[in-house]
């Protein structure tokens, strides 16, 4: 046993060299075959012979063949010299066969073999030509459906599947001369690796970003864009065009965990089933302090005795709808708390209606049908991004400018810089009837 453990050099006999020695009628891999194939693959049939690159994970098939040959010949793996073709007892060119009398030892059999060699190159070309579209179509459709599955249900395993397909495309794109596919697929791999570090489910934007990569690959394929020279700006431009269509909606992104168990909510909806649904979701979040009302008028009365931290209201209700109710909360001189955050749930998604709701003074809107994640994201928006209130002759409510940009070059409609007035937090049990925090009664 001690003998076994001693450091020894073990000589392994290999019969590869013997096997690779050409015999009459054998198929051999010649330099010209390699050059011709590489030229075809890279889209440049007349490509001069290339140097064999050092070991690299992106080795092309042709380079791999060269490697195999160098291993067979027993030469150093890291050689940078073009390997000598095996079976070169007679060197045969696939494109211009030499005359028999020019080469010592060459006879008619050699010419027959040269013809066979040429045929094999042609066959390989045809095979590759037929394989490319199939391969691309398969991988692109797999990528599409994997991203669609991911959009439907986020799981780490599904994300890995998308990564696997992209990684495959990254390796193969360049091989077939579609360098841009490799470029875009590599970017997609990086995106996925970043997303894998996240613990929360994917947002719509993140899924759209992945889809944008897949769409770009389709553009590259559709336009048969090979190589990279001068094509990157074209693809970048098209990617930007695709990116413009990505919805800027990050509504379903789940923010950091919050404890909302101690917050109080007033749910206002004329449909008892919707009230039950919203209350069930809130209870699932651990919240117990939830009251409800069937319309705006009833809710307004309820607020006087139940100062909710957040109001969740429907729009369509009678006798007082959600917009009227919101205006009353914001502007009525008897309002229990004009600053109460309001989330409006609505099936109306037309622009003019959204503007109408916004102008009534709601903080957040959530389109029906609702989901638990959607509702939670709106509650978090209220907690994380409390907005200043604006008081003008025509409006009182949360600042409708959600984004403040220093780069804005349009007309500043706020001609007079408004005065900043600090308003202390309204405690839950205070009696707001003193009107101290109320806005101007002129505000609409």
């Amino acid at each position, binding site marked *: 046993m001690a003998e076994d453990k001693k450091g020894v050099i073990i000589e392994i006999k290999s019969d590869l060299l013997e096997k690779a020695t050409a015999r009459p009628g054998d198929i051999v891999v010649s330099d010209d075959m390699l050059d011709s194939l590489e030229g075809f693959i890279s889209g440049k049939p007349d490509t001069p012979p290339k140097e064999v690159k050092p070991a690299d994970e992106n080795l092309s098939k042709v380079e791999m063949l060269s490697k195999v040959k160098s291993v067979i010949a027993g030469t150093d793996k890291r050689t940078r010299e073009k390997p000598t073709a095996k079976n070169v007892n007679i060197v045969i060119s696939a494109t211009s066969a030499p005359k028999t009398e020019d080469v010592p030892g060459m006879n008619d059999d050699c010419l027959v073999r040269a013809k066979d060699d040429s045929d094999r190159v042609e066959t390989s070309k045809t095979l590759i030509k037929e394989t490319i579209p199939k391969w691309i179509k398969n991988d692109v459709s797999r990528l599409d459906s994997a991203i669609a599955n991911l959009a439907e249900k986020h799981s780490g395993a599904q994300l890995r599947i998308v990564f696997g397909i992209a990684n495959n495309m990254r390796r193969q794109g360049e091989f077939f001369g579609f360098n841009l596919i490799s470029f875009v697929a590599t970017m997609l791999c990086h995106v996925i690796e970043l997303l894998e570090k996240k613990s929360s489910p994917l947002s719509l934007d993140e899924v759209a970003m992945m889809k944008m990569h897949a769409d770009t690959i389709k553009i590259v394929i559709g336009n048969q864009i090979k190589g990279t020279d001068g094509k990157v700006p074209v693809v970048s431009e098209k990617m930007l065009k695709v990116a413009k269509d990505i919805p800027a909606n990050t509504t379903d992104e789940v923010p950091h965990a919050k404890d909302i168990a101690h917050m109080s909510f007033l749910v206002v909806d004329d449909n008892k089933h919707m009230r039950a649904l919203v209350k069930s979701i809130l209870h699932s979040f651990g919240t117990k302090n939830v009251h409800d009302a069937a319309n705006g008028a009833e809710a307004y009365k309820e607020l006087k005795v139940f100062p909710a931290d957040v109001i969740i209201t429907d729009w369509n209700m009678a006798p007082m709808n959600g917009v009227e109710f919101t205006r009353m909360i914001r502007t009525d001189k008897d309002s229990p708390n004009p600053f109460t955050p309001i989330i409006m749930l609505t099936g109306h998604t037309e622009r003019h209606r959204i503007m109408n709701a916004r102008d009534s003074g709601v903080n957040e809107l959530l389109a029906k049908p609702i989901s638990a994640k959607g509702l939670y994201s709106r509650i978090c928006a*209220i907690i994380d991004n409390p907005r200043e209130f604006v008081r*003008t002759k025509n409006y009182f409510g949360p600042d409708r400018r959600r984004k403040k940009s220093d780069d804005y070059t349009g007309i500043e409609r706020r001609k007079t810089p408004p005065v900043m007035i600090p308003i202390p937090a309204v405690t839950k049990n205070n009696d707001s009837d003193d009107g101290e925090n109320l806005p101007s009664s002129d505000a609409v």
Partner: protein
Amino acid sequence: MTEEETKDAILDVETDLKERAKPRPGDIAVSENMLSEAENVIASMANEYITWVKDDITRLEGFFEQFAAKQDASSLHEIFEVSHDMKGQGGSFGYNLITTVTGSLCKVIEALQKKAPPYGEKEVSAIKVHIDAIKLIASEHIKGDGGDVGRQLVDGIDAVKKKLNM
């Protein structure tokens, strides 16, 4: 109210919600699991939903009968109200097709409301087609996008609307 109180102003309103929502040791914070649980709670209400949606369908049919007979604005408005409610609920319980079809019905009604009665037979039957589709989805419990059946239903409705330029 003083002049000062009516001046244009930006009010920097303090709020303690952020502080109160910070999870502390032993507190229950809304986690991924909790969100999934909440989605499960909604899914478990799907059976109740399909019961109450049948009441909505009955109301829808009642208002439609009235509308077909009188062609009055009030019953048309009621059909809109019921279908608008249904549109907002279906998807929450996995019945996305109910949301799709009732959404389409709302658009048909809005188009009709812009026109003066009397409405043509085809316009009335466009409403009926929608109601029949909703009945089928509810009775067959067709969830999600409904696969091939769902696609056929939506294509059929789209074809009707196209024919009527809606």
